[in-house]
């Protein structure tokens, strides 16, 4: 096992990608702080959380899928569908939020469950199955309506405007609290439950996991269900943030989520990676946007070019590490 000597301690190779992402985040924050007035404040970091809470939740769900060696392209569409269902039900028939929210979560999970079942039972590549899911969810959005539906429900608006004050003038939104809870629960599940370890085993070597008698099929179905659930939850957070439901919300978000997971050091082949990495990946993406907005003269498309460059660097790094440790 290759290790890197760092100061006094030795860091096992498996933590290295997360460490690199962490260092990158710190370096970017420091560079931003030196370059821009008012950048180096705690609120800037918290704003990254506030603006990307929904992406974080979605990326967490996606991490489960990618750890098993699968992929879920439907996440962005499910997010949009969730905003749409929530808005349509509350504004049309005037359903109360306590009915709408569970329903939205159930629809997202249900879609994930179906996709997971098809992947597992019929041996169709996850790429294709979730692509069909992506079309389906977007199609359902447009079937509900092609225009943006505003949300005026008092509970939602209150939720959207609430500020949770922390110490020293810092504040976060309730969405951040939800996202953090999701992160903690997911980390616990991955690290401390049999299900979590089976996720890693299935991603490491599915055939072996089967022969070891692990419930690989159930696990695969479960990770897509989790991803569907997280996408629906992400959709709810987005509808708090946007206070509208729209079929064109979160277009291309699956790419951001995949990029966050990869930059966080999770191998797309499965079996290796940490949730903390995904959190850092989302933060790095968010910070890039923050820096570009601070820069002012830099135009928005540089975000995409930067993300592409980062992806390239991280993928080559991963390749070097995994190339060294494999037979």
């Amino acid at each position: 096992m290759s290790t890197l000597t760092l100061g006094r301690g030795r860091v096992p190779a498996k933590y290295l990608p997360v460490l690199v992402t962490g260092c990158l985040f710190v370096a970017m924050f420091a560079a931003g702080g030196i370059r821009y007035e008012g950048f180096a404040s705690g609120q800037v970091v918290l704003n990254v959380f506030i603006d990307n809470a929904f992406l974080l939740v979605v990326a967490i769900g996606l991490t489960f899928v990618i750890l098993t060696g699968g992929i879920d392209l439907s996440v962005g569409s499910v997010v949009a569908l969730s905003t749409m269902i929530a808005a349509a039900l509350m504004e049309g028939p005037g359903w109360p939020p306590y009915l709408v929210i569970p329903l939205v979560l159930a629809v997202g999970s249900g879609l994930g469950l179906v996709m997971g079942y098809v992947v597992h039972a019929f041996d169709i590549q996850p790429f294709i199955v979730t692509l069909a899911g992506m079309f389906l969810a977007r199609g359902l959005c447009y079937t509900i309506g092609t225009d943006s539906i505003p949300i005026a429900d008092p509970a939602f608006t209150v939720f959207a405007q609430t500020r949770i004050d922390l110490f020293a003038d810092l504040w976060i939104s309730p969405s951040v609290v939800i996202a953090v809870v999701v992160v903690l629960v997911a980390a616990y599940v991955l690290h401390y439950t049999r299900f979590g370890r089976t996720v890693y085993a299935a991603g490491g070597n599915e055939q072996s996991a089967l022969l070891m008698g692990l419930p690989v099929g159930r696990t695969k179905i479960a990770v897509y269900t989790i991803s569907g659930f997280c996408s629906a939850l992400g959709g709810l957070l987005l509808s708090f943030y946007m206070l509208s439901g729209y079929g064109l919300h979160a277009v291309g978000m699956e790419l951001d989520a995949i990029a966050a997971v990869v930059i966080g050091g999770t191998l797309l082949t499965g079996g290796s990676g940490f949730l903390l990495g995904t959190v850092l990946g989302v933060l790095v993406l968010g910070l890039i946007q923050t820096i570009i907005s601070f820069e002012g003269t830099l135009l928005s498309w540089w975000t995409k070019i930067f993300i592409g460059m980062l992806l390239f660097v991280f993928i080559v790094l991963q390749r070097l590490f995994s190339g060294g440790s494999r037979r």
Partner: protein
Amino acid sequence: MRRLVWPAAVLVLLLALNVFFTPSFLSIQVRDGHLYGSLIDILRFGAPLILVAIGMTLVIATGGIDLSVGSVVAISGALACLQISQDAGLFTAVALALGLCLLLGAWNGFLVAGIGIQPIIATLILMVAGRGLAQLITGGQIITVNSPAYKMIGGGYWLTVPFGIVIVAVVLAVTAFLTRRLALGMLIESVGGNAEASRLAGIRSRGIIVMVYAFAALCAGVAGLMISSNVSSADGNNAGLWIELDAILAVVIGGTSLAGGRFSLAGTVLGALIIQTLTTTIYSIGVPPETTLLFKALVVAAVCLIQSPSFREKVFHRRRRAVAPAPATDEKVRVTT
């Protein structure tokens, strides 16, 4: 040829559905010296997708995948329109755009064959960065051009036939010649079927892989020219959006396995036509256009399920219990004596 049966059946079914709702669906007329008719429209509007899917077929046959073609479509159109708007000649504009596409494709190929990165990730880089690049070229604006010569590529006619269809036919013929007349097809299938065995048989698989990605990008580039010429403008943000997914779908519907190996150009063309016909059908039978995607999802699901051996087994021959296939231990499962 047996694997072409299902996609062909689906296409015939879709066409029949159209004829049922619009009896004149199959008629083709000559108006103003141009061919007109629903079938011509399907071919004409489907041309960019067919092009991209042809390139994608070869990439998938090597066991790869190219997610970046949509971005390449945008880049190609953006660069060509930028050149033309700056008074460059048509030839220069097209050559520059296609040259850049070849370069981008070779970059993908280098990442896959040279550095050994998984294709889906390697091309994800260009998929993300490429959109930014396209917007960088257009300066975030939609560049409109007014060049009759450029308009010809996507909107013109040649001997009554829409020029786009001619381009597709030429590219298809050239590809079929390279792969089936010459030995490229067999070498691609060999690399996709077993990369290490191919290397040990003396095949320069790296060269082949780079070539295939470059070819896919070139096809995407031509499609990009076609799309931007059709509307006489380049939109870095939306041109070719999601075309990579449609192209992959077309390839899969056409019976080429995402795992690589055997490929079928005819199947891919059928697949692309199914996708395009579907869109047309939705308009012609009066389903609201909003549900296009919904229908697409259903057809994709149906075609993929029908092609999945384990689905057929489960549905058509109900067995007591599903037997987990064990491909990794194939050696031990196989019991020929």
